[in-house]
């Protein structure tokens, strides 16, 4: 009987020894893709890199909350976000510090913070995913999704989280909040299916519940790779179209990071053309932002294969903070 | 006349020990038997086999002329033998009140709700515990709990009553009261009785035959 008490005591004693890493990276990009990049960096530099990942079920805010809670005694050096709005939120909260990485040279100006607190790279595009095994009535523009001839056959995620929230905050900034809220109201009534997330609406398209959905390119790539008869169509193209929205990954250095040199080294690495090429070739098919990156043919590039819209990200992040309660009232009932 | 209980060549082995070794016994209706013997002699096992709660290894038991147990086969299940048993640890139902320990037994045995409740009250009254009708068994004293166990067994008017050391842990006064009570009940019900006891006086006071179970055999 004593053994039942002694064993736990020993276990607790042994577990109280923690390893001290050379670099701590908090990462919101899917683990299956990003851990390869972290490992490559660790192998090349010999540094002991510790990664922490987030999950979609938490609306990918777990690590942001952790960074906020740890702000008086930061434990992370770098935050690699698969999105942008929360990175700007961290900047506004004073949790990031500037670093102008030489690797950010070729990245277009619109995807970099003017004060060098964050830098964007490898993006996802907001796209329509449609079935190819049937005749599909597909809207050409995002706002056409609520039209009766399209709505009953399509789906989108509620704008409460992730890229959909950012997307509709960007639309609200461009077209006024009243316009977007009225449209969302119309969309809710139109028969358009509203899902919990982009992966959910993609699955419904694959299962044939709907003919098309508004989602991200990485979800679309997963659907195609899983053997479903689907293809990607970029919205808002052609004359008068404002272009598809590209939402980049962002990387930033945490203020008072415990390992600043290693953090800079990692940011230089992750912003390199090599990493953009690796992410483009990965299963998530991230779209390189800088021109001339070696990407597989099936990865569509802005300027070459589709037209992308330009966005003031700081303003979008502000708009997101203001609109979120409105979206919540509309969709959390 | 058919014997109430007729046991023939009954044997039972538990592990390496032969608990019962060729037991033969016959009891007529209303007959009383006190079964004595040291602890572990197999008295309780004999009662349990008789009740149909355990199989034997070999031998037969007939109850009122019907084959009830044949070797390891329980031919008549316990609930069809028309017998009741008061267990050494009483076996009261903890979630039911004193009244419902008795009335629910009667209802389960097929009496209507009204009859079950009035019969239960009568029986509790006879045993002097009607005032405890709304209490749960866990709140009763040892003596009170034992009366309840008797009340439940007797309310069902069994033809055979098996008592496994029913007065074992009672003080002398309570024990004497219990024995008087039992005598009164037996006179009234005329049930066949097997009483397991360590107490020779108690066996004598019962007034029937008294047998000793030792090394698996009756003497």
């Amino acid at each position, binding site marked *: 009987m004593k053994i039942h008490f002694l064993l736990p*005591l020993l276990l607790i004693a042994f577990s109280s020894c923690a390893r001290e890493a050379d670099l701590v990276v908090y990462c919101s990009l899917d*683990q299956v893709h990003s851990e390869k990049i972290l490992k490559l960096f660790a192998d090349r530099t010999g540094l002991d890199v510790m990664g922490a990942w987030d*999950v*979609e079920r938490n609306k990918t805010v777990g*690590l942001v909350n952790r960074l906020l809670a740890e702000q*008086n005694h930061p*434990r992370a050096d770098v935050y690699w976000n698969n999105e942008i709005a929360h990175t700007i939120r961290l900047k506004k909260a004073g949790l990031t510090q500037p670093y102008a990485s030489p690797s950010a040279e070729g990245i277009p100006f619109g995807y970099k913070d003017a004060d060098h607190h964050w830098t964007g790279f490898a993006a996802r595009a907001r796209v329509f995913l449609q079935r190819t095994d049937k005749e599909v009535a597909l809207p050409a523009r995002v706002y056409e999704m609520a039209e009766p001839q399209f709505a009953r056959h399509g789906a989108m995620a509620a704008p409460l989280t992730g890229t959909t929230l950012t997307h509709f905050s960007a639309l609200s900034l461009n077209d006024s909040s009243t316009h977007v809220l009225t449209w969302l109201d119309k969309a809710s009534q139109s028969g358009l299916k509203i899902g919990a997330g982009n992966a959910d609406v993609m699955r419904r398209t694959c299962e044939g519940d709907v003919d098309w959905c508004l989602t991200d390119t990485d979800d679309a790539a997963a659907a195609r790779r899983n053997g479903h008869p689907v293809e990607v169509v970029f919205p808002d193209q052609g004359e008068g179209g404002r272009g598809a929205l590209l939402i980049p990954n962002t990387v930033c250095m945490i203020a008072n990071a415990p390992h600043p040199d290693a953090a800079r080294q990692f940011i230089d690495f992750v912003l390199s053309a090599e990493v953009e090429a690796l992410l483009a070739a990965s299963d998530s098919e991230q779209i390189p932002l800088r021109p001339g990156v070696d990407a597989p043919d099936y990865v569509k590039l802005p300027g070459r294969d589709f037209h992308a819209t330009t966005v003031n990200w700081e303003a979008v992040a502000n708009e997101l903070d203001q609109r979120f309660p409105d979206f919540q009232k509309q969709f*959390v009932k | 006349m058919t014997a109430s209980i007729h046991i023939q060549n009954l044997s039972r082995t538990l592990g390496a020990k032969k608990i019962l070794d060729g037991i033969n016994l016959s009891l007529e209706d209303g007959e009383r038997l006190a079964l004595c013997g040291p602890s572990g002699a197999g008295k309780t096992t004999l009662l349990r086999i008789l*009740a149909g709660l355990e199989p034997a290894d070999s031998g037969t038991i007939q109850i009122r002329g019907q084959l009830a147990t044949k070797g390891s086969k329980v031919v008549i299940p316990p609930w069809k033998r028309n017998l009741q048993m008061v267990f050494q640890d009483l076996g009261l139902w903890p*979630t039911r009140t004193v009244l419902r320990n008795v009335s629910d037994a009667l209802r389960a045995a097929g009496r209507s709700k009204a009859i079950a409740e009035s019969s239960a009250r009568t029986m509790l009254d006879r045993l002097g515990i009607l005032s405890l009708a709304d209490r749960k068994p866990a709140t009763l004293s040892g003596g009170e709990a034992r009366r309840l166990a008797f009340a439940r067994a007797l309310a069902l008017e069994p033809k055979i009553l098996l008592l496994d050391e029913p007065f074992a842990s009672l003080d002398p006064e309570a024990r004497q009261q219990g024995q008087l009570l039992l005598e009164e009940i037996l006179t009234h019900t005329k049930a066949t009785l097997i009483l397991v006891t360590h107490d020779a006086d108690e066996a004598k006071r019962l007034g029937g035959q008294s047998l000793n179970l030792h090394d698996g055999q009756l003497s």
Partner: protein
Amino acid sequence: MIFHSGRSPWPWRFLALGALLLAAFWPLAPLLQTLLSPQEWASIFEPRLAGLFAQTLWMSALSGLIALLVGWPTAVLASRLHLPGFGWLHFLLPLPLLLPPLLLAQAWHGLTGMDGPWASVWSLGLAYAPLSALFVARALRHQQASAHESTLLVAGPRFALNEMFRVSAPAAILGATLAAVFASTDFAVPDYFSSLGDKFSVYPAEVFNHWRSYQGDPATLKQGAAVAAPLVAVSALALYAAFVLRDRAGALESNSSRIAKPMRCGSLCIPLSVALLSFSVLLFFLPLGRILYETGATGPESQGSWASHATAAFSDAVQRGRSDLGHSLALGALAGAFALLVAPFLAHFWLQLGGHHQPWRKRAARLFGTLLALPLLAPAVGTGLGAILAFNRPGWEPFYDSLLMPGLVLGGRYLPIAVFLLAERMSRIPQARIESARLTGMPYLFRLLYVRLATCRDAWLLGAGLVAVFAIRELDLAVLLPAANASAAVRYYNALHFARDNFVAAFGLLITLLLFLPVAIHALFSKPNDA
């Protein structure tokens, strides 16, 4: 207070209570401050929130009811009846608890196409039905053999079954209440079914969204805590009510070492076998079968067979998840170890507090039980943020970064399950056995070890095992607490996002298998009456 040479339980109790305060209540301190800030309460009186709250209450109550209606009879049939060919089914009782609820939800949708709030109620009810079943199985295991046999003598198997249900009712209700509490805090499953059909939302989603307003200081943490408070309060009330029911049911200590044998059912054998088979199909075979199918299921344009995809998925799961699984097991072992060490002292204290007939002591014991459950009822994200605020301090890095910190926090959070199970079992130890040990002058710790815990080893280990399982399944805290991040739960839910359905199904099954292995080994090698 004077302590007599190790005979007093108080030094040990203070130690256990201290460990509980450190592990479970310190992280809650920032949330509990909300109680002192009335201005935060204003945010919760909003009609939209009232509607969400009502919706969550009826949904979780129905999930609890399903857990009761499925878990209770399954446990009775699987653990106490002699049904041919079903002897091994009671081993499987904990199995659905080991599966992530979202994986079960996906399996049910895949099987039936169900969606909307009713699908959520159904799926969560079945996911937590084993909680009710395990509590019932433990209670029945110690039903007095003679009490059972007297039911057989009176009226046969039907009445005996009736008595088994009555005896296990308080345990079933306590288990179902815990199931309802777990269901009421889950928003991933409702979110999933909402995305598939009729739109609906639940209160925990609102609680979760309020953590978004968190700005890093305890003051903003209060907004989330204030919104969570009504759900915690209702859960606590439900638990208190379950304790009242348990106390009213009354129980006899089992004076006999004889445990009732599985009952032969005579003519009821066939209908009861059919019933048990139906429950088993609902709880185990259908969802597990579907998840197994998902490991190799792909779209029509995919190359390769189901078997080749499934093999690849399992191989991927082993390769990628191996170290996370190891990490999770270590974390679970730590949380279980914490429960193993602390639960006996608290269970004994709780039992003694309520073990007298004075009504005020009963009430105090119920209050203590409810208070003990507070960490379990508190929202996980709030607990995680509270733990960071409590333990992330200069000089504390070795502790903060070690596995010990999440092990303690998770152990403290799920400790009530172990305490409730152990106390229920301890209450059935004959008083005479305890008193005779006391008369020998044996020190308190030895009495606890060699008299109480020696008798209750199965419940003690089961409780610690359940704490370990819940610690391994925990996601929200695992994301937030440093050393817990590299865990199987984080990898599993991370993969869910990316539509890696084959991997998710294979990894989910792998986690289940790994957790189930010790249960199966214990069940195979333990004696039937190993109490």
